[in-house]
């Protein structure tokens, strides 16, 4: 989902930790070092990296801006290849038949079948283009908050892992407990009370 889309989803995060050296320079280097890598014509089935939100199919950030006032905006790109099981099965059977014919045998050992399967999958991945998905993020670095414009669990998990690896900063996802503890200005007494909370019953019978 993109910043400029007509409809967006927002998952809120708090950014913990600080970048000691020159902030913008460190961010620029870190983004470049962890930019998305194309896996078309490669045997890998997944690639995760950063890309420009304006030009998501360019492999670097040259000529693209990602600093807007006190916000940094860029995209998490996840490229994935997925081969239907029936296609794998078809190619596996063809490869096994060929091996049997070439070696003039009647059966193959289980390990040999497994090796053939790995090779079949590897070859299919090489031929298959990856499907790219882009998710924008808006990082207000002064306020130490970040909005990820996606609510899919898997994409959020990829974001948390890559963000931590890239910037050596951790992300805390805001949900009822963390939002209460970190953003509601609770006193120590209120925090203690919260640890012991149990659900309320709202409806308590007819009232006159």
């Amino acid at each position, binding site marked *: 989902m993109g910043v400029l889309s007509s409809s967006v989803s927002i998952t809120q995060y708090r950014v913990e930790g600080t970048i000691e050296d020159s902030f913008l320079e460190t961010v620029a280097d870190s983004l470049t070092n962890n930019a998305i890598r194309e896996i078309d014509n490669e045997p890998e089935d997944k690639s995760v990296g950063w890309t420009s939100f304006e030009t998501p199919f360019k492999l670097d950030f040259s000529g693209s801006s990602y600093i807007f006032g006190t916000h940094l905006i860029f995209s998490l790109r996840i490229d994935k290849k997925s081969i239907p099981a029936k296609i794998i099965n078809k190619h596996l059977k063809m490869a096994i038949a060929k091996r049997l014919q070439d070696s003039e045998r009647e059966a193959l050992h289980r390990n040999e079948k497994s090796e053939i399967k790995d090779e079949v999958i590897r070859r299919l991945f090489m031929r298959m283009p990856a499907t790219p998905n882009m998710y924008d993020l808006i990082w207000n670095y002064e306020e130490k908050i970040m909005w990820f414009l996606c609510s899919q669990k898997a994409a959020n998990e990829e974001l948390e892992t890559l963000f931590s690896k890239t910037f050596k900063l951790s992300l805390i996802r805001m949900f009822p407990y963390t939002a*209460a503890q970190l953003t509601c200005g609770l006193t120590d007494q209120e925090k203690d009370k919260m640890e012991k909370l149990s659900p309320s019953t709202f409806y308590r019978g007819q009232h006159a």
Partner: protein
Amino acid sequence: MLDVSVAYNRYTFLGHEFLTWLWYMIETDTQKLLDPKAELEDMYIGNRIVLENSSHNRDEVVTIKGDGAGLEEGVIALQKGAKVTEINLVVKAGENEWRFNLKGESLNIGGLKSPETGRVESAEDVEGAVLEKIYLYEKMVDLTNYAYRQFIKSRLSTEWETSIVKNISKWISQAAKA
């Protein structure tokens, strides 16, 4: 602080209570939910509300959707002990209108449609459009956080049990009769 993955499940109920309280507040004291500094004028329930009842070993889900749909079934579900798990909200400020879904368990904002912004026709327009979008999104993020902060402060106060829950119960009762 508790481990995050443990806390997510342990406090899901708090998100559901928040949205149920939000419905009650929208019906009884909307202005209290709006931060005066935000210059927003009105907030009401949009075209979808989802309630879940997990009490007494049952797992009942009531979904009401559609523009102009009545919320009577929702009130009946509240009487049976259900809580709101997802709500669609409409927020107004003059000519401007925002619509979005709020999920109780995650506090995620979904399907946020903000007021129209200027069209991006050249590369020079991008920065202005992006900053305008951020400003419009921020209004709803702040609104949600402001309402949640009020809820949490109420939830942890002594008035929660002594008066707020009683008032919510009365409101449910009156809404069922209406």
